[in-house]
C-alpha cells in the first residue's frame, strides 16, 4: 500500500533525487573524488527503480498526474506520466546507468583531473533528461531542455582540444534551436494564455486556423529538429560526437537525441494533436520526405568516413531519420508511430553499444581510424563481438532490434500507400536501400576487424595475437547492450509491448493497435 501511494510521488522524486545528487557529488568530491562515480551510479539505480514502479503504476492504474506544490494545473506546473513517458524514462535511465558504469574507468583515464566536475555535470544532464520526460508543462520542458543541453555542451568540452570547437558549434546551434522552441512557446502563450500541455490541447482546436499557431508549430518543429540533429540541421552533431569523451558520446547519442525526439512527439501529439496535422495534411508528408532524404544522406556520408566515431555520428543522422519518418507516417498509419517509438529504444541500445565499443578501442589501443583495425577481432574479442552484434542490428538482420523497426516502418509505408499512392513506395525503397547502405559502412569495419590479415600475419609469423583486455566495468555494459540488441528485437516482435502501445495510441487518439 505504501509503495503504491509513493509511486504517485515518483515523477517529481526522479528529478529531485537526481538534482540533489549532483550537488552531493560536488561536496563529496571535495572530500574524496573517488566517491563521485559510485554516488552517480547509485542515484541512477534508484531513479531506474522508481521508473520501473512508475511503469507498473501507469500500466495498472493509468496516467499519473502530479501537481507541483499542490497548485492546480493551468497555473501550477503539472507532471504527467503516461505510457509513453514512462517507457522513455526507463530507456534513458537504463542507458544512463550503463554509461555511468562504463564511464568510471574511461573517465579516470581520459580526464583524470576532472572527475568530480564530470560527474556533477553528468548528473545534471540526467536531471535535465528526466525532467523533459516527466513534465506536462511546455515551459518546464524548455527549462529542462536547456539544463540538459548546457550539461551536454559542458560534457563535450571536457575533452579539451578540438572538442572545444565542437562544443562551441553545438552551443551556437543548440541555442538557436532552444530559441526557436522558446519562440514557439511564446506564440502559443500569446494566443492561449496557457503553458500546460493538456490545457493547450483543449484551447488550441478553435485556433488552428490562426497564423500565430501555425508559426508556433513551425518554430517547435525546426527548434527540435536542430536538437535531434535531423538532416540538414545536423551539422553540429558529427563533430560533437567525434571529439567528446567516449562515455559522453555514448550517452548523448543514446539518450539526448532520444529525449529530443520524445519532446517532438509530445509537442506534435499532446499539444497540437492529430487533428492539427490532419488539417494541414501536407505537413506530415513533408516531414516524411525530409526524413527520407536524411536517411539516405546520413548513410552516404557515413560511408566516406574513416574515423569510427564520426561514422557512427553520421549513422545517427540516418537513424534519427528513421524515427522522424515514423513520426511523419503516423497520422496516416499508426504503425508509423509504433516504428518511431520502437526505434527510440532500439537505436538507443544499438548506438549506445557501438559507441561504447568504439570508446573501448580508443581506451585500450588508441584506435579510431577504421583503416588501422586489422586484427582487432583477435586483440579485443569481446568488444569486437559486441560491436559486431550491434552493427548487425543496425543493418537490420533478424531477429535484432533494427529488424523490428524496419518491419514496422515498411508496413506503415505500405499502409500509407492507400492515402499517398505511389510516393509511399519511395519510403519503402528508402528504408530497404538504407539497410544496404548500413551494410556497406558497417561491414567495412567488421571485415577489417576479423578477416583482413594484419601485416605480421601475412609475413608468415603465426603469432598468437596479444589480447588486450579492457576492464570488466567497461566490458559488461557493452555486452549487456549487445545481448539486448537481440532480446529487445525479439520482444518487439512479440505482443509484449502491446499494453504500452495501446495506452499510448489511445491517449493520442489513434485507437487501439490494429
Amino acid at each position, binding site marked *: 500500500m505504501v509503495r503504491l501511494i509513493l509511486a504517485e510521488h515518483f515523477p517529481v522524486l526522479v528529478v529531485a533525487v537526481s538534482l540533489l545528487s549532483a550537488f552531493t557529488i560536488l561536496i563529496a568530491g571535495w572530500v574524496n573524488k573517488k566517491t563521485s562515480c559510485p554516488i552517480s551510479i547509485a542515484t541512477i539505480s534508484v531513479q531506474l527503480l522508481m521508473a520501473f514502479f512508475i511503469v507498473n503504476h501507469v500500466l495498472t492504474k493509468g496516467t499519473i498526474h502530479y501537481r507541483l506544490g499542490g497548485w492546480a494545473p493551468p497555473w501550477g506546473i503539472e507532471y504527467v506520466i503516461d505510457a509513453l513517458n514512462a517507457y522513455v524514462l526507463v530507456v534513458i535511465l537504463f542507458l544512463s546507468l550503463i554509461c555511468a558504469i562504463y564511464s568510471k574507468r574511461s573517465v579516470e583515464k581520459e580526464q583524470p583531473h576532472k572527475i568530480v566536475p564530470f560527474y556533477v555535470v553528468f548528473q545534471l544532464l540526467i536531471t535535465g533528461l528526466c525532467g523533459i520526460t516527466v513534465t506536462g508543462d511546455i515551459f518546464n520542458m524548455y527549462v529542462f531542455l536547456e539544463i540538459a543541453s548546457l550539461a551536454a555542451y559542458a560534457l563535450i568540452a571536457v575533452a579539451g582540444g578540438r572538442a572545444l570547437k565542437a562544443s562551441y558549434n553545438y552551443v551556437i546551434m543548440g541555442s538557436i534551436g532552444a530559441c526557436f522552441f522558446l519562440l514557439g512557446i511564446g506564440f502559443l502563450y500569446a494566443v492561449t494564455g496557457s503553458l500546460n500541455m493538456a490545457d493547450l490541447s483543449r484551447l488550441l482546436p478553435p485556433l488552428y486556423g490562426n497564423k500565430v499557431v501555425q508559426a508556433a508549430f513551425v518554430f517547435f518543429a525546426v527548434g527540435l529538429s536542430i536538437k535531434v540533429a535531423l538532416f540538414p540541421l545536423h551539422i553540429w552533431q558529427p563533430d560533437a560526437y567525434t571529439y567528446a569523451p567516449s562515455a559522453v558520446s555514448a550517452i548523448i547519442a543514446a539518450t539526448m537525441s532520444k529525449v529530443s525526439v520524445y519532446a517532438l512527439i509530445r509537442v506534435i501529439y499532446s499539444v497540437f494533436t492529430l487533428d492539427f496535422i490532419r488539417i494541414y495534411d501536407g505537413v506530415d508528408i513533408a516531414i516524411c520526405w525530409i526524413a527520407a532524404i536524411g536517411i539516405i544522406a546520413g548513410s552516404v556520408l557515413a560511408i566516406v568516413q574513416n574515423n569510427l566515431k564520426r561514422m557512427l555520428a553520421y549513422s545517427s543522422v540516418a537513424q534519427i531519420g528513421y524515427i522522424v519518418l515514423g513520426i511523419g507516417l503516423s497520422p496516416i498509419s499508426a504503425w508509423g508511430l509504433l516504428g518511431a517509438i520502437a526505434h527510440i529504444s532500439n537505436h538507443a541500445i544499438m548506438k549506445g553499444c557501438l559507441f561504447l565499443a568504439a570508446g573501448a578501442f580508443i581506451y585500450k589501443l588508441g584506435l579510431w581510424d577504421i583503416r588501422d583495425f586489422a586484427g582487432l577481432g583477435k586483440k579485443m574479442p569481446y568488444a569486437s563481438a559486441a560491436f559486431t552484434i550491434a552493427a548487425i542490428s543496425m543493418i537490420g538482420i533478424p531477429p535484432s532490434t533494427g529488424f523490428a523497426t*524496419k518491419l514496422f516502418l515498411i508496413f506503415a509505408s505500405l499502409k500509407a500507400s492507400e492515402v499517398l499512392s505511389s510516393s509511399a513506395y519511395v519510403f519503402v525503397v528508402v528504408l530497404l536501400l538504407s539497410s*544496404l547502405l548500413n551494410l556497406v559502412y558497417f561491414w567495412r569495419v567488421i571485415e577489417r576487424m576479423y578477416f583482413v590479415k594484419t601485416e605480421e600475419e601475412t609475413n608468415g609469423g603465426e603469432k598468437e595475437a596479444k589480447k588486450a583486455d579492457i576492464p570488466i566495468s567497461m566490458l559488461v555494459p557493452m555486452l549487456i547492450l549487445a545481448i539486448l540488441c537481440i532480446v529487445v528485437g525479439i520482444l518487439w516482435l512479440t505482443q509484449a509491448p502491446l499494453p504500452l502501445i495501446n495506452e499510448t495510441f489511445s491517449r493520442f487518439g489513434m485507437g487501439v493497435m490494429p
Partner: protein
Amino acid sequence: MVELMTPLFVILCPAIAAPMILLFGKRPNIREGWTIAAGIAMFSLVLSMLPTILDGEVIKCTFFQTLFEGVAFGFKVDAFGIIFALTASSLWILVSFYSIGYMRSLHEHAQTRYFFSFAIAIFGGIGIAMSANLLTMFVFYEILTVSTYPLVIHDQTPEALSAGRKYFAYLLTSGCFFLFAVIMTYYLTGTTDFTNGGIPALGSASRLILVILFFCFLLGFLKAAWMPFHSWLPTAMIAPTPVSALLHAVAVVKAGVFGIVRIVCFIYGVDLMTSLGLGLALACIAAFTMIVANLFAIAQDNLKRRLAYSTINQLSYIILGAALLTQDGIRGAMMHIPFHGYMKITLFLCAGAIMVVTGKKNISEMAGIGRTMPVTMLAFSIGALGMSGIPPVVGFMSKWYLCLGSVRAYEIISPVMITFLFVLLIASLLDVVYFFPIIHTAFFKRPEGEGNEEGMEKEKIKEAPLFMLIPLTITAIFSVIFLLDFILGLNIISMYIYELVEIAVGNVIP
C-alpha cells in the same frame, strides 16, 4: 494438426552446439564432438517426426504471436518441409565428419570459427525447412545468409574477401526484396502462413500487383541462383570444399529453391499461378538457366567451378518442376531436392578429396587420377551419372517425373509447354557433355610426362583419409539406394521420401 515441441528441440540442437563449439575452441576433439552429437541428435529428432507426418498430420509449434495480427512466429512441419529437413540434417552429419578430415588434413586456420558458422548455418537451414510462415522463414533466411559469410571468406585472402563482398551484395539485396514481398503479402492478405493450395485472399488483389510481388519473391530467393543473377555462386567457390558442399547441396541454394516451391505451391497456389500465367514465365527463366548454365559449365576447367555451374543448372530443374504446375512436375521438383542434395554432395566431397590428396583443382590436371583414387572416382562417377539422369542413380527418377510433368502441362495448360520437355532433354545431354570428359580424363588418360608403360604399374593407390572417404562413399551409395528403393518399395532405406513426396503433392494439388 498436432501441437508438438519436437521442432523446437530440433532447432535447439544446432543452437546449443554453436556456443559450445566456441566454448571448447581450444580442445578440437571435444569441439568436434559437439558438432557430431548435435548432428546425430537433430537427425534422430527429425526422424521422430516422420511417423506423424506419414499419417498425413502436420506438426505445429508456435512460439509467440507477433504484433502483426494473424502472424505467429513458429514452426509448422509438413511433408514438404520435412523432406528438406531430412536432407539437411542427414547430410550435416556426413559433412561434419568430412569437414573434420578435410580441415585437419590441410591444417586450416580458424577451425573454431568454421565449425561455429557451420552450426549456425544449419540452424538457419533447418529453420527455413520448418517455418510456418513467410516471416519466420525470412528470419532464418537472413541468419543463413549472414552465417555462411565467414565460411565463404574462410581463406581471408583478398580474393576471398572480395568474393565475400559479392556474396553479401547479392544475397542481402535479395533479402530486401524478400522482406518487401513478405510485408506486401501480409498487407494484401493479412496472413503469411503457408497454406495448402495457396492463400485464398491473394486472388482478390490486382493482377499487376500480384505479378510484381511474384518477381519480388523471385528476386528474394536469389539463393536459387537463377540466371542472370547467378554469379555469386561460382564466386563463392573460393570457400573450403566442405563449405561448397554445404552451400550447394544442403543449406543455401536448397533454401532458395525450397522457398520458390513454397511460394508457388503454398502462397500463390497452382490455380492462381496458372491463371496469372506466371508458371510459364518462371519456366522460361528456369529453361534459360538450365541451358546457359550448362554451356558455361562446359567451358570451366576448375572442377569446383564446373560443379557450381552444374548446380545452377540442377536448381533450375527444381524451379522448372514447380513452374510446370502439374502433379508430376511438382513431384519431380520435390524429389530433386533430396536427390540432388545427395548426388551433388558426393561430387563436391570427391572434388575436396582430390584436392586434399593431390592438391589438384583443375580437370586438365586430373589425368589418371582414377587409378590412384579408385573409390573416390567411382563415387564421383555415380554422382555424375545421377546428374545426367542415367538410371542406376536416382537422378533418373526426378528427371523422369519432370519430363512427365512437362507432357502433362502440354496436355492441360498449353501446347507451348512441350518445349520444356525438349529443354529438359537437351540439358541432360549437356550434362553428359561436361561430366563424361572428367570421368574419361580420370580413368583413361595417362598423366603427362610418364606416358610409358612402367610408370603406370608403379602407381600406388592413395586415397583420402577415412574421415573423408566414408562420407562420400555413403552419399554415393545412397544415391543408388534411393532408386533401388523405388523398385523394392521398402521405404525404410530411403527415409520414406517417396511417400512424403506423395503426401506433399497431395497437399498442393489434391
